């Protein structure tokens, strides 16, 4: 994404603040994978992976990897006490039944209506949806973490997605390198700005209009 480690960690830290004790949380690849590092010590969170892990723990040290214990991206992880393995139907049943409290994932674009476009770039990259549609549509809370703008400086928050949708109206919160937005009944709302960025800068780098929360925090 072209973001430095500090900024990526800032985004991850803010996302981690949404997590509560006992939640079941699914993390996408990239910035979301940094989120567990920012949880309060001792907080019990069950991390869920689409390939059938609940209670996923951190990557093992080099040399201690187990090829039969990998996350949905195919990379070695570990299991925490209380964790378990299941087949892919049960794993996605958790998602569709509303038992996954939160998913934190990256995106290419998000619209002001909460539409998510993160699975395909026509003519360039057609990886397939994997579990993205189920997660976007059925996780109880969908948090998108991403850069405010793409590599050409264009806003990734837009009036209407130009890329094919993963799911429409599914995003609840957007956390970027500049700001935090929520999506509720009143539409897109700016709730926090990360200093040294300013509201003006956020407006300039957002591809649609938005409300500003009365209690907006600059943090």
């Amino acid at each position, binding site marked *: 994404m072209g973001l430095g480690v500090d900024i990526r960690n800032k985004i991850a830290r803010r996302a981690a603040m949404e997590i509560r004790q*006992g939640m079941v949380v699914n993390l996408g690849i990239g910035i979301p994978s940094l989120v567990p590092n920012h949880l309060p010590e001792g907080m019990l969170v*069950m991390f869920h992976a689409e390939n059938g892990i609940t209670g996923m723990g951190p990557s093992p040290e080099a040399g201690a990897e187990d090829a039969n214990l990998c996350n949905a991206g195919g990379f070695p992880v570990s299991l925490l006490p*209380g964790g*378990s*393995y*299941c087949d892919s139907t049960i794993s996605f049943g958790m*998602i*569709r039944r509303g038992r996954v409290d939160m998913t934190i994932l990256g995106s290419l674009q998000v619209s002001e209506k909460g539409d998510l476009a993160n699975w395909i770039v026509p003519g360039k990259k057609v990886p397939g949806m994997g579990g993205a549609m189920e997660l976007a549509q059925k996780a109880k809370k969908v948090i998108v973490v991403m850069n405010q703008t793409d590599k050409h400086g264009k806003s990734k928050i837009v009036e209407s997605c130009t890329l094919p949708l993963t799911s429409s109206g599914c995003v609840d919160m957007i956390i970027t390198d500049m700001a935090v937005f929520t999506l509720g009944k009143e539409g897109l709302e700016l709730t926090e700005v990360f200093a040294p960025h300013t509201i003006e800068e956020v407006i300039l780098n957002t591809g649609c209009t938005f409300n500003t929360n009365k209690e907006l925090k600059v943090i």
Partner: protein
Amino acid sequence: MNNPFQKITTADELIRHFHDGMTLMYGGFGGVGSPPTIIEAILQSGIKDLTLIGNDTGFPHIGIGQIVSQGRVRRITTSHIGSNPIAGQLMTDGKMDVEFCPQGILAERIRAGGMGIPAILSDIGMDNEIVTAGKQTCTIGKQEYLVEPALTAEISIIYAKKADSYGNLIYDKSARNTNPLCAMAGDITIAEVEEIVPLGSLHPDEIITPGVFVDYIIPSEGVNWKWAWE
């Protein structure tokens, strides 16, 4: 017992979730694998006009049969009532509506509810009007199928051998039957268990129901009925 997820509680604490007219799903097959302590608490609570979903109506004095026999059930979706003559009498007298569903399809409908799948298509009992009553069909190619809708319930009550404090469950022999399915289909799922063990004591490959699906765990006081074969 360490209770980090606040799931371990008692039947007395939980009974406030139960109310007249509610939809209740129960694990068990002929009473085997039905949760005696929760059923006893429901009997004591006096709630009525229940809509039940489960494999069968047990025996008059065994399992869910006790609740049925007391006339507390307005409607039931089940596959068999033959071992509980009182259930048959209540049906004949028009005091309890019975929706009969082939046993394996009933299990699939409960599972579908637990998996967030709206319905399955079925070719079982297509030529039987009790099975097809009130059901839609769907034609794929030239083949017509029954649409069998998913089943969920406000509360599922199930029985397991062991739970850890997150609610990961393992079952004992044929007492597994419909319990792992009902465990997933409840909006709230209550697991009555023979033993509660610390987090990490169950082998993660051997867990049948992940605790993700379980909201409450209560220790069982054991079966308080005499089995038909005793």
